[in-house]
């Protein structure tokens, strides 16, 4: 019986010209994608490929459709009123609409962490258990997975002795790492991060950045940010979006030292975009 969700063989997309070549080995393939809220077009005719491993930063000023694009990859935007899209998004070899008739399967394969740390008002352990509800696991197996995920999210040492404490008792930085750990229990192939450090302090931000770099070695991490310094620190691949269009994309080296677009140069050096 053929695998319903075949694992793509990937290599990093080197630059915009190399995008098509890498299309066969991408975790996410986006083709002629436009996104709308009601009649407002937020993203217009975007095509891109996101590699199977490594950290991809969607960079650009506010309101350029970075989060919207991210939110369509796991169809979480379906929950938003008047949101729609045209074109196609292919995640792990399957079309997000036709390949995943059960959207929950898509979401289990693509973990997501939002801008605001959001823990459920229950214990730390129950928060971690939330994603495992669909899997019939023994208590010891569930505990092992939870421990592993907390270790992967570099928070185990801080909270191992207080798993039964309310998750709301953690600091914001810890809550955000807990959210990442909570997403990791599902062992996703792709992790979507929507400005995960936007509302936390610099020390916690650095901890999360280190975590993102470490996770990027094994899975595809797609992170929205408008923090240029952060993108420079953590990204393997950068996609610069402006006014709902891709201005330029490529490896970190390409984007931060050999960039060709004037708009990219202005944004990266002056943190200003006139598009």
């Amino acid at each position: 019986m053929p695998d319903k969700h075949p694992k793509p063989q990937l290599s990093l997309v080197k630059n915009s010209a190399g995008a098509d070549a890498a299309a066969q080995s991408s975790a996410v393939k986006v083709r002629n994608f436009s996104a709308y809220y009601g009649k407002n077009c937020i993203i217009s005719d975007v095509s891109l490929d996101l590699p199977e491993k490594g950290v991809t930063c969607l960079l650009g000023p506010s309101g350029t459709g970075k989060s919207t694009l991210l939110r369509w990859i796991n169809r979480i935007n379906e929950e938003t009123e008047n949101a729609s899209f045209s074109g196609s998004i292919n995640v792990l070899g399957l079309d997000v609409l036709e390949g995943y008739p059960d959207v929950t399967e898509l979401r289990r394969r693509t973990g997501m962490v939002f801008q605001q740390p959001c823990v459920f008002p229950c214990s730390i352990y129950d928060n971690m258990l939330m994603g495992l509800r669909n899997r019939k696991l023994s208590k010891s197996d569930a505990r092992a997975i939870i421990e592993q995920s907390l270790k992967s999210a570099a928070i185990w040492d801080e909270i191992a002795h207080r798993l039964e404490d309310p998750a709301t008792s953690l600091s914001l930085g810890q809550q955000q790492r807990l959210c990442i750990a909570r997403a990791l229990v599902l062992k996703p192939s792709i992790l979507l991060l929507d400005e995960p450090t936007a509302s936390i302090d610099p020390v916690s931000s650095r901890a999360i950045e280190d975590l993102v770099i470490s996770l990027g070695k094994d899975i595809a991490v797609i992170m929205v940010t408008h923090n240029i310094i952060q993108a420079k620190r953590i990204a393997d691949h950068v996609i610069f979006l402006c006014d709902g269009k891709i201005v330029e994309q490529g490896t970190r080296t390409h984007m931060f030292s050999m960039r060709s677009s004037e708009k990219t140069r202005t944004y990266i050096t002056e943190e200003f975009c006139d598009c």
Partner: protein
Amino acid sequence: MFKARNRRHFSEQCFALAARLSLIICAGILLFLLGSIFIQGISALSLEFLFTPSSSFGKSGGIFYQLFGSLLMVLVAALLVLPLALGTALFRNSYNNNTGLAHVMDQSLYALNAIPSVTYGIFGLIFFVNLLNTGISWFVGSIILAIMMLPTVTLSSYQAMAAIPKIYHENAAALGLTRTQIVRRVTLPQSFHGVVTGLLIGLSRAIGETAPIMFIATAFSGVTVPQSLVEPVSTLPTHILELAQQSTDPQALQNAWGASLTLVLLAATFSGLALFLRSRLNSEGHQ
């Protein structure tokens, strides 16, 4: 310019005075009413009064069966209304994507809330007692009270659900939880206080109602603990009504005050619990 400032200052003073006066009048009426009931009723109130059956058409004895009847009817009404209100609120909050239908639902609930309570009684009389031939039944009374409470409990539950930040739903959905699992794991636990608050507010209103149950569920005297669903009970509001008709008798009047105070205390207990839960909900929301 000086005159204009003086005029503005004067109008502000007048407005503040009018607002204070309104508050004093409202609080005064409430205090007078509650104070009268308390002062007149406290002398009748005792454990013996609460746990002794009435006799001589209420003139002597206590209010045991009336208290029992009232509590039985409203608690069964609560059991009937809770799943219905919760289901409606959940549909409105989590399953309905049609804004037109949501609008119709809201308007219908507000309209249902505005119907005079006696109309519910007449409906019960025509539909249950006459058409379905149930006879005078405390259970029919509970059904009618449940219908009467439905808008309050539904709207309160829905508002509690709608107040849950959308980010919780999105986080749960992003973890691969199905809609039903999100309802069970996120919506219901987080709106629990709001649902119970609505239920208690509904109960505090229902327990004092006389008109909707007078024709269909209660008897003025001679009833004890009902042995089946289709027997009448006696309730505090109808007992007070009966005693008020004998107000020339000092003993009946004294018992009427005692029964009134008991009813007020019951309603206040439900309202107080609702207030407590609401304040707890608010404080949790600010955390």
